[in-house]
């Protein structure tokens, strides 16, 4: 960076940084793939804009969605972000598997630099922009309804969290076309990611996208924990909450404490890179070990931030599709809480190989294995939930069952890795890669897909096509085993992660099987898209206006599908666990309330989109050293916050008469609906009113 360039209008950005220009000037397979990816993204953006314009969708998009602070819409937008990013990150995964499967004593099709960017974006996106938004979106949509609340405690803050996360995702997407991304992996270990060894914009893209997302998640944690503590319906004591709310609570608490070390670590790395600090450099007192500690102080709880909500989903899905109350509710709560606490005591197992001696390693190894106890308890609690039930193997349930089977294998290899001596042998190897995919795919992703299948009819008012869901399920399942079981083997054979080219012919067969598996995983994703399209086209035969297609047990099933913006016409009175099942069994479901009251809901606000768009500019400007834009966007962000503090009219009132009219009309509709026996829940007979078993 020279003094001139850093104060020019576009900072250090030049035409050669645009991937199309770069590819034109330096044609090659790797560059061509890079430019194509950028091209697909730009085309996708243009098509969306064109469609929105053609169908005059801009007004609806802005008023009904982008400026909305309704937790349900915020939740759906989170999930949309996750799906879009999932598409990119899966394709990257397939591309890497292809490269490795052909790169035995052969350079393959990707340059080392491109491959480095791929594993860095794949990991960063999957964790921060697929798993996190998916989980956060799911909690957003479901948790307030399950505790009988009208919204989260701080609706605007919730929208700001979404926009900060989306801004981070946007930065990663921009890096596809403008400049390069980091090659430092999703963990971005210095000193490699320091300015000395990684000059250029790549690591800066990583730093600012992750920083924005991590601040968004911290705010989400604060918001959700407050909501669960303060916004529960009368009678909804903590020990009557559905398991999903418990796991949301644990995740929120983890977010509050665990995101901060990440934000700090990324900002310290930024100071090293931008301002000549020496926190993590090789020389002048810097120490990369501090980064490893800070990062994993976040990184390990992060694993549980992601997986606990998925555990919550499995609890709901297994209980509902077994037609039975959850087994060992208190046991599950205690296990969840234990996992949350223990998750802060194990971070060092990510670097047993740093040379800290047997004492320290043994302590952290044992702490790691301790987590296996509550996790094992949970697995058996889910199994026992099915015992003496009536099990329906719907798509959501299939994903849950496959999770149980697959997750314990990952648990086994996790215990293997928790042993420092064995870790010395398989650390950094494909065994490790197989292990964490073995936890995150069945754990988080299957959980989120199961939740998506389960709650989709609640959110959109019609059921998804089961047939395509099952096709997708088989692709995901076989795809998973084919992709990652060979990686375990390769790890034991001494194959290391992040390797662009191999020199051992015996790896070839395993890598090829793994590539086939990756294609199957990608098909699984495509079939989810097919399922969505087919279901939308057949939506009229799939509608569930009465709102309870699966004989649900918790409060979100007691209102219409989709629910009104205020969730509940009258806040329900909760008398025990499985609140809605109780109401149904007592014959009080769909009874007209005695009285209606005015309902206050938050108004839409442009603050969150303003902050989000300014945050994208802010990150972009920092990456390219466009200092005037840094100042401008920073002022915009905080200006929006300050301006908002002068707005006094932030809520509007929905009069009781309107609530009454809407609710009574819906209740009338429900009463006219025929009840559905469970045998027919996947036929058009199911309009969302469940037959009550007595």
């Amino acid at each position, binding site marked *: 960076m020279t003094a001139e360039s850093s104060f020019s209008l576009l900072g250090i950005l030049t035409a050669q940084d645009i991937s199309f220009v770069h590819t034109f000037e330096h044609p090659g397979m790797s560059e061509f793939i890079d430019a194509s990816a950028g091209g697909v993204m730009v085309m996708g953006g243009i098509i969306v804009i064109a469609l929105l314009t053609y169908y005059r969708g801009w007004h609806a998009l802005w008023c009904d969605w982008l400026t909305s602070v309704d937790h349900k819409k915020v939740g759906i937008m989170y999930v949309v972000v996750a799906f879009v990013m999932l598409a990119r990150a899966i394709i990257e995964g397939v591309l890497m598997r292809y490269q490795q499967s052909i790169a035995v004593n052969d350079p393959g099709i990707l340059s080392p630099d491109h491959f480095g960017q791929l594993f860095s974006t794949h990991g960063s996106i999957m964790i921060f922009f697929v798993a996190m938004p998916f989980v956060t979106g799911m909690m957003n949509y479901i948790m307030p309804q399950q505790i009988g609340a009208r919204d989260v405690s701080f609706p605007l803050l919730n929208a700001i969290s979404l926009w900060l996360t989306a801004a981070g995702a946007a930065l990663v997407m921009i890096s596809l076309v403008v400049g390069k991304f980091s090659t430092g992996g999703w963990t971005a270990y210095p000193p490699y990611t320091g300015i000395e060894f990684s000059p250029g914009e790549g690591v800066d893209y990583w730093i600012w996208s992750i920083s924005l997302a991590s601040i968004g998640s911290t705010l989400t944690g604060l918001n959700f924990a407050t909501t669960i503590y303060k916004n529960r319906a009368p009678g909804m004591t903590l020990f009557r909450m559905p398991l999903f709310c418990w796991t949301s609570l644990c995740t929120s608490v983890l977010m509050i404490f665990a995101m901060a070390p990440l934000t700090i670590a990324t900002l310290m790395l930024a100071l090293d890179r931008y301002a000549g600090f020496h926190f993590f450099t090789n020389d002048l007192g810097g120490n990369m070990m501090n980064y490893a500690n800070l990062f994993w102080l976040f990184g390990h709880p992060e694993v549980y931030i992601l997986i606990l909500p998925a555990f919550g989903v499995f609890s709901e899905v297994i209980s509902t599709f077994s037609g039975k109350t959850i087994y060992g509710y208190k046991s599950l709560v205690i296990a969840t809480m234990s996992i949350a606490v223990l998750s802060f005591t194990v971070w060092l197992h990510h670097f047993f190989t740093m040379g800290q001696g047997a004492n320290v390693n043994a302590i952290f190894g044992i702490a790691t294995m301790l987590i296996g106890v509550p996790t094992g308890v949970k697995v*058996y609690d889910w199994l026992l939930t099915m015992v*003496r039930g009536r099990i329906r193997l719907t798509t959501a349930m299939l994903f849950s069952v496959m999770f149980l089977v697959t997750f314990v294998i990952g648990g086994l290899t996790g215990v293997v890795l928790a042993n420092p001596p064995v870790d010395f042998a398989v650390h950094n190897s494909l065994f490790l890669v197989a292990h964490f995919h073995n936890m995150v795919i069945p754990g988080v992703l299957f959980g989120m897909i199961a939740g998506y299948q389960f709650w989709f009819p609640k959110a959109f008012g019609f059921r998804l096509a089961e047939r395509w869901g099952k096709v997708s399920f088989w692709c995901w399942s076989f795809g998973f085993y084919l992709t990652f079981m060979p990686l375990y083997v390769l790890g034991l054979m001494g194959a290391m992660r992040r390797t662009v080219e191999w020199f051992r012919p015996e790896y070839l067969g395993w890598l090829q099987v793994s590539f086939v598996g990756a294609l199957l995983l990608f098909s699984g994703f495509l079939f989810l898209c097919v399922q969505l399209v087919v279901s939308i086209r057949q939506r009229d035969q799939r509608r569930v206006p009465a709102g309870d297609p699966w004989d649900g047990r918790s409060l979100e099933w007691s209102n219409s599908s989709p629910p009104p913006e205020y969730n509940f016409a009258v806040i329900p009175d909760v008398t025990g666990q499985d609140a809605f099942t109780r109401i149904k069994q007592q014959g009080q479901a769909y009874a007209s309330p005695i009285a209606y009251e005015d309902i206050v809901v938050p108004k839409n606000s442009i603050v969150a989109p303003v902050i989000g768009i300014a945050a994208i500019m802010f990150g972009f400007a920092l990456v390219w050293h466009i200092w005037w834009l840094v100042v401008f966007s920073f002022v915009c962000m905080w200006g929006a916050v300050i301006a908002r503090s002068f707005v006094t009219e932030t809520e509007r009132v929905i009069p009781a008469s309107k609530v009454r009219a809407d609710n009574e009309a819906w209740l009338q509709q429900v009463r006219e609906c025929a009840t559905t026996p469970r045998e027919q829940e996947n036929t058009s007979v199911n309009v969302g009113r469940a037959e009550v078993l007595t």
Partner: protein
Amino acid sequence: MRRNQEVPKILMRSAGVLLLLTSSVVAASDGFINPAGPVAEALRDHLIFIVVVMAIVIAPLFIALPWVLWRYRLGTKSGSYQPNWEFSWPLEVLIWGVPAVIVGVLSWNLWHQSYELDPYKPLAATEATLEVQAIALDWKWVFIYPEQDVASVNELMIVAGRPVRFRLTSGTVMQSFMIPRLGGQIYTMAGMVTQLNLLASEPGQFRGLNTQYNGMGFANQKFMTHAVSQADFDTWAVNMSESKPPLNQTAWAQLAKPSVLASPQSFGSVAEGLFTGVIADFTGGYHHIKADGTDL
């Protein structure tokens, strides 16, 4: 419905086939699973012990899950339907107790193995220990043999049956040193020293590498370890000192530049204090970080 029930069984069967395949292929591979020394052997045995013990917790799930899915399926007449059944003390004791006991056993084992297999712990052997200083560079490994006063790059010469004590540092970013068939790995970091003790039981050639991603040449950062007899080692060392150029500051400056070497290099003498000098470069000349309390 029926097909769905059988899935876990199919998976178990394919897992069995996979295990068989694995064991045969892996036996011939160059991972620690095919050990060529006591450390790798101990690691492999430790791994097998853990897997066997863990199977006690996991196996019941694989057996019970298909059975439960079948017995309690919708429409069945067999299993009783008790939608409110939610707790049983005996089961509760079992599902907390068994994992707790197993983790207890594994923890006891882990504690002892962590000490036993501590990479810093000298290996018990009748032969004297061979000292090797290893320096990680982009994208190559430099090995200095202080007792022989010779050095090799991307090629490691050790004596079969004689324990080797590596003292490692980095002249660049953090890396991780590993010879899979001999044992585990250890990080190398600038300004710091880590240690690793390994032993090759028999003469042979073993692949070594850096496992920690460090940029464009990462995949090519590999070296061959030659475990030879004491006599061959001595001959090699003498030949080196007689015929190879010195590893002086000029040669070092050339090596320290990021590059992938086409073939290994050898040096017949080593500038005094090179290893400590590389460390001191990052610590401002002060040897204030000592990994083991001994002099750098």
